[in-house]
């Protein structure tokens, strides 16, 4: 009768069962900080007089928003991270050149296991639901409490199930699936809720695609996105996770607050228009809008499958003179895979610039900040006013396929009807 989130939370709080609305205190399996929010956690840790973290092997530290440091201020934040890692003998500190975007590292390096309760001082921590963990973003102060006690309170969320069946058409992707969900639920439609993605289409999706949909759960307000672990999950985790873990799944007759049914056969390429993620339209409705910049990357769409898709479209084509294309692999591992598969060569030959793994331009940080009056199409997760640079710029969110086709044309282009020059 219990769904996967309820089961994970009862296990973590040593209770036989939990019910939505109930406040529980859970043991934390793993906690992550980056430099933007983590420096506050470290400051507070010292301020309250704490001496030692609860478990030096369960804290993962990944500077990722601004790496390598583009300013003295950013360099100072990285220094704070480095010194803390040394002081507390933190086992997993991914410095410049060792890691990449934290959310990719957490899954790729096997720090998260199915059934875990994981917190991160970043809102896109919900990504790890892709392998069947309950993971959620928290603030810097709460992270201080976790660093000291290894525990945190949660309200057991109601869960919305999203059942997906059918097959994605060529160049229609999990990103388009999520944008459809955002259109249906709206920016606060899943506030305080969990989102469970299920059904044959989800089972057919790779871990990369599952990470994209769970990653964006926060954009409709959800506490967590989650997908039951299956054979694909186990195959992905082989060689990454050494410890054993239970396979926790929702009961057949679990209770959900609400149920959405989506048929992937009906999905078309979608785009979030300025200035809200839920302002979703078919790409065909905004086709032709001229673009100054296209960005492919981030914790949402910077994985190998995303890069393969972009390369498939870019191969033999040139980025339009009107626009610039920036591509950022999500991690060192993704970068290396892309290099070995020849994708980087395809990108460079097309006229794209390929930068080192980092969050970079997604939050207007570096490596592609946009000017006033400019328009960017991006594979990232937020298009709020000023998100990627000037408050007078505009951001459209779409899939890597839409991004690649649009970069070639220099204007928003539907990848399903795209023909190279």
């Amino acid at each position, binding site marked *: 009768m219990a769904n996967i989130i309820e089961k994970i939370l009862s296990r973590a709080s040593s209770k036989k069962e939990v019910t939505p609305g109930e*406040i529980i205190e859970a043991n934390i399996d793993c906690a992550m900080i980056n430099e*933007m*929010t983590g*420096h*506050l956690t470290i*400051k*507070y840790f010292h*301020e*309250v*007089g*704490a001496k030692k973290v609860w478990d030096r092997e369960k804290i993962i530290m990944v500077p990722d*928003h*601004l790496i390598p440091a583009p*300013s003295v*201020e*950013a360099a*100072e*934040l990285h220094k704070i991270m480095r010194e803390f890692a040394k002081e507390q003998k933190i086992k997993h500190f991914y410095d410049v050149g060792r890691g990449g975007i934290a959310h990719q590292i957490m899954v790729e390096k096997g720090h998260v296991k199915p059934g875990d309760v994981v917190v*991160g*001082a*970043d*809102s896109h*921590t919900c990504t790890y639901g892709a392998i069947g963990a309950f993971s959620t*973003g*928290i*603030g*810097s*102060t*709460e992270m*201080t*409490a976790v660093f*000291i006690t290894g525990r945190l309170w949660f309200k057991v969320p109601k869960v919305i199930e999203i059942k997906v069946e059918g097959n994605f058409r060529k160049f229609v992707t999990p990103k388009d699936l999520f944008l459809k969900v955002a259109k249906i639920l709206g*920016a*606060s439609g899943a*506030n*305080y809720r969990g989102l469970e993605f299920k059904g044959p289409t989800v089972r057919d999706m790779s871990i990369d695609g599952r990470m994209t949909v769970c990653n964006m759960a*926060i954009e409709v*307000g959800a*506490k967590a996105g989650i997908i039951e672990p299956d054979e694909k999950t186990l195959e992905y985790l082989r060689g990454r996770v050494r410890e054993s873990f239970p396979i926790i799944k929702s009961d057949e007759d679990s209770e959900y607050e609400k149920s959405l049914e989506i048929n992937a056969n009906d999905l078309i390429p979608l785009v979030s228009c300025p200035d*809200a993620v839920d302002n979703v339209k078919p790409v065909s409705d905004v086709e032709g809008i001229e673009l100054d910049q296209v960005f492919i990357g981030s914790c949402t769409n910077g994985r190998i499958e995303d890069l393969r898709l972009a390369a498939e479209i870019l191969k033999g084509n040139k980025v339009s003179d009107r626009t610039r294309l920036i591509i950022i692999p999500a991690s060192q591992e993704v970068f290396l895979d892309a290099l070995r598969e020849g994708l980087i060569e395809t990108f460079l030959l097309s006229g794209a610039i390929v930068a080192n793994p980092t969050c970079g331009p997604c*939050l*207007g*940080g570096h490596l592609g900040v946009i000017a006033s009056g400019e328009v960017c199409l991006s594979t990232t997760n*937020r298009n*709020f*006013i*000023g*998100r990627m640079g000037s*408050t007078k710029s505009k951001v459209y969110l779409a899939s890597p396929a839409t991004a690649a086709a649009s970069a070639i044309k220099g204007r928003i282009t539907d990848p399903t009807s795209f023909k190279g020059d």
Partner: protein
Amino acid sequence: MRISGKVIKYGDDINTDYIIPAKYLVLTDPKELAKHAMESLDPSFTEKSKDAIIVAGKNFGCGSSREQAPISLKYAGIKAIVAKSFARIFYRNAINIGLPVLECEDLWDKVKDGDQLILDLKSGKIENLNNNTYAQAQPLPGFILELIEMGGLLNKLKRMIG
């Protein structure tokens, strides 16, 4: 615990990038952060934010987990936020830094910018002195009220370790 202040009114979906843009997250002094609070949405915010109460629509604080969002509002002088609903990470962050947040569906329609409000955190009762109307917010659960009264989670941790 009673709080009084003048209203600054906003609509729905006020996101954390509006509250404090990411480019300022490298600032480590909360007073410096406060100077940039709401600057892209409401450039005159810091001129009126001292001892004010924000009244907003639904999903206040959506987006990032950056605690710098409630910190910048608190140091800009905001005494409390009353919204139809909050994004959950912002809600927790505000409580953890000791900034009172109340959920109230029907206040928004009864106030305008500059109205003088009195909030009672324990009962959730809100009085608008300008038009003599009342609204009822959801009372805060005991353990949350306790955290706010202590001035936030860090003070609790200090006591625990102390």
